[in-house]
């Protein structure tokens, strides 16, 4: 994979935003995440790569405690965000999820109007004082989701009536509308065409100015293009984590090398 273009990056050290230590996840008897330690930095795009079923989504869902909704799922270990243990019993997962937004692997717009899809988060969190402010926020979010031009004339149309790729961008707009500090994106571009993908990547790069973004992707090129850090998962283990440039050009672990050169996965 020598044709891969790796952007020039500043190797400056950012603060740690998310620190995971000894994280184990079990689905019943299935040990899906095995003892993962990782430190995700603020103002950084971190890419999770790895073969299908290796636990990328599972680990991502640990960060905003979406796994709480799965009855059989059990999470062991510590995950700290800004130094606070998010699995502390005092932590309200609802507050956590307002701070840690998520875009799901499958687009899941609400069966409501496009406007209401985006406005829902700000409404329940009281982010807009009046209608004008809300309108502005909706427009800004739709623009950041790279979908404004396509839907600006039909904000009242149902969000479920959009194409798959448009739905996914609507979901991205919905996630950024609540102004999260961390944005978790589970394969956000798997249903997008190259133009929309480029727009979303641009958005991710923009979000990096203020947020910490974690993106799961199956596209090596995408990981290389957008991320500064890359984590490679394999069979529930975090095999290698480091600078994206170093992972793609000079991986330490033979499994990483064979995955990025297309031999396993």
């Amino acid at each position, binding site marked *: 994979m020598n044709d891969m273009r790796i952007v020039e990056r500043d190797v400056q050290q950012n603060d740690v935003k998310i620190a995971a230590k000894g994280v184990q996840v079990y689905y019943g008897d299935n040990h899906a995440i095995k003892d993962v330690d990782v430190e995700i930095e603020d103002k950084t795009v971190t890419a999770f790569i790895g073969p299908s079923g290796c636990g990328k989504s599972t680990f991502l869902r640990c960060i905003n405690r979406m796994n709480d909704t799965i*009855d059989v799922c059990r999470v062991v270990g510590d995950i700290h965000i800004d130094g606070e243990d998010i699995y502390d019993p005092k932590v309200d997962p609802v507050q956590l*999820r307002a701070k840690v937004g998520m875009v*799901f692997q499958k687009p899941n717009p*609400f069966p409501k109007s496009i406007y209401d899809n985006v406005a829902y988060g700000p409404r329940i*969190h009281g982010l807009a004082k009046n209608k004008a402010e809300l309108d502005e926020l909706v427009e800004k979010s739709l623009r950041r989701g790279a979908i404004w031009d396509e839907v600006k004339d039909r904000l009242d149309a149902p969000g479920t009536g959009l194409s798959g790729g448009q739905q996914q961008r609507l979901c991205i707009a919905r996630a950024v509308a*609540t102004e999260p500090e961390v944005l978790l994106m589970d394969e956000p571009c798997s249903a997008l065409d190259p133009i929309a993908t480029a727009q979303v990547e641009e958005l991710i790069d923009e979000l990096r100015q203020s947020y910490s973004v974690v993106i799961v992707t199956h596209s090596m090129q995408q990981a290389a293009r957008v991320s500064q850090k890359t984590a490679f998962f394999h069979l529930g283990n975090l095999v290698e984590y480091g600078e994206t440039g170093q992972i793609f050009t000079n991986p330490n672990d033979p499994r990483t090398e064979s995955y990025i050169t297309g031999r396993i996965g």
Partner: protein
Amino acid sequence: MTDASLNSPDNARAPRSLTQEDARTKKRNASERRFRAYGIAAICTGLFFLLALLAAILSAGLPAFRQAVVEVPFTLTQEQHDEAEEAMLKTAIYTNYFITSLSNTMQAEGVQIKFDEDAVERLLGKVGGDLRSHFRDNPDQIGEEIEFELAASSRVDRYLKGTFTREDLQGGNRFFMPEDFDLIDAMKEAGLIKQVFNWNFITGVDTGVDNPGGAGIGASVLGSFFMMLVVLVLSLPIGVAASIYLEEFAPKNRFTDFIEINIANLAAVPSIVFGILGLAVFIQFAHLPQSAPLVGGLVLTLMTLPTIIISTRASLKAVPPSIRDAALGVGASKMQAVFHHVLPLAAPGILTGTIIGLAQALGETAPLLLIGMVGFVARYPDTFLEGFLEPNSAVPAQIYNWAARSDAVFTEKAWGGIIVLLLFLVTMNTIAVILRRRFERRW
């Protein structure tokens, strides 16, 4: 390359024509045609039975909605009025006025017949009393000619419909004498008898055996209405709250499994069991009034709850989990996710289930027999509250009651009651279908 062998010459097949059915396709198509024929036959059988049933019900029940009336032009002068009001037997005088008027009218039409006030009373009821109260309520009509309309007795009705003939009458009794046939024929010849819509059947109350023609289903419709009100007000909130809790919030463990199995079992419990339970708990233990729609409603609530819970849970389950994830993902609480997103999507299903549960409860008879809602109810409740507490009947119980009486007129009323009940059920089910169509959403 494992598929190399497929390309070997001995496996090569002759090119097949697409226009010719091969043996396998023929067989498959034949079985498909057979299956379709079975399906059509099944539907036709079902339709046939449905039509037969409808025809039977309509032919037997529609006469209950028609009523023969006798219309006689009548004038009461002021002197006649004063004279009658001063007499001892006031209504008898009014009856005489009426008889005079009736024979004059028939004579004018060229019909000659002699009859007495007993015959008039047998055929048209207590005419004198009716006339007197009419003029008491409308004193301004004194001196004017009015068309006075009197409902004919049920035997007149049946004679005109042909279900009661001269041969059926043996000797005669206080309800009917052989010469009454002649009077009916005479009035008919004079063009005084009309068939009108029997509003009394809709609005009236039950009557005793001596006046089967006057019996109406109104009071029991009201009884059913009050019961349905109780059922709706209790079972919808309780059922929906229970289902939301069980489906969205309750941990999945042995205990909730146990509850789930029991709810499913409850739905299969025969209704008479709920009747006995209601008798024991609500009447004998809690001392609620017997035969009251409130108690009937409580019993039917017990019966309807499992239906509502099961259908509500099914419609909650049908909402894709990704919607819940989406709501939780933007930081909605579980309750917000349920009330803002899941419940609206499940609402059509919940409403449909509720209406179907109510329709079931509306048609239920067995539990009502046990709590005494089959009594003879000859009056309407006076106030809204009394509607819940006064003894009353319900439409199916009233039908049961009429069907058990010997008089053929009551049997006809029972069939008429069935039509009323079916109309209610069809209306409710239509509303359920419309709601489902109207609010159904795809995702």
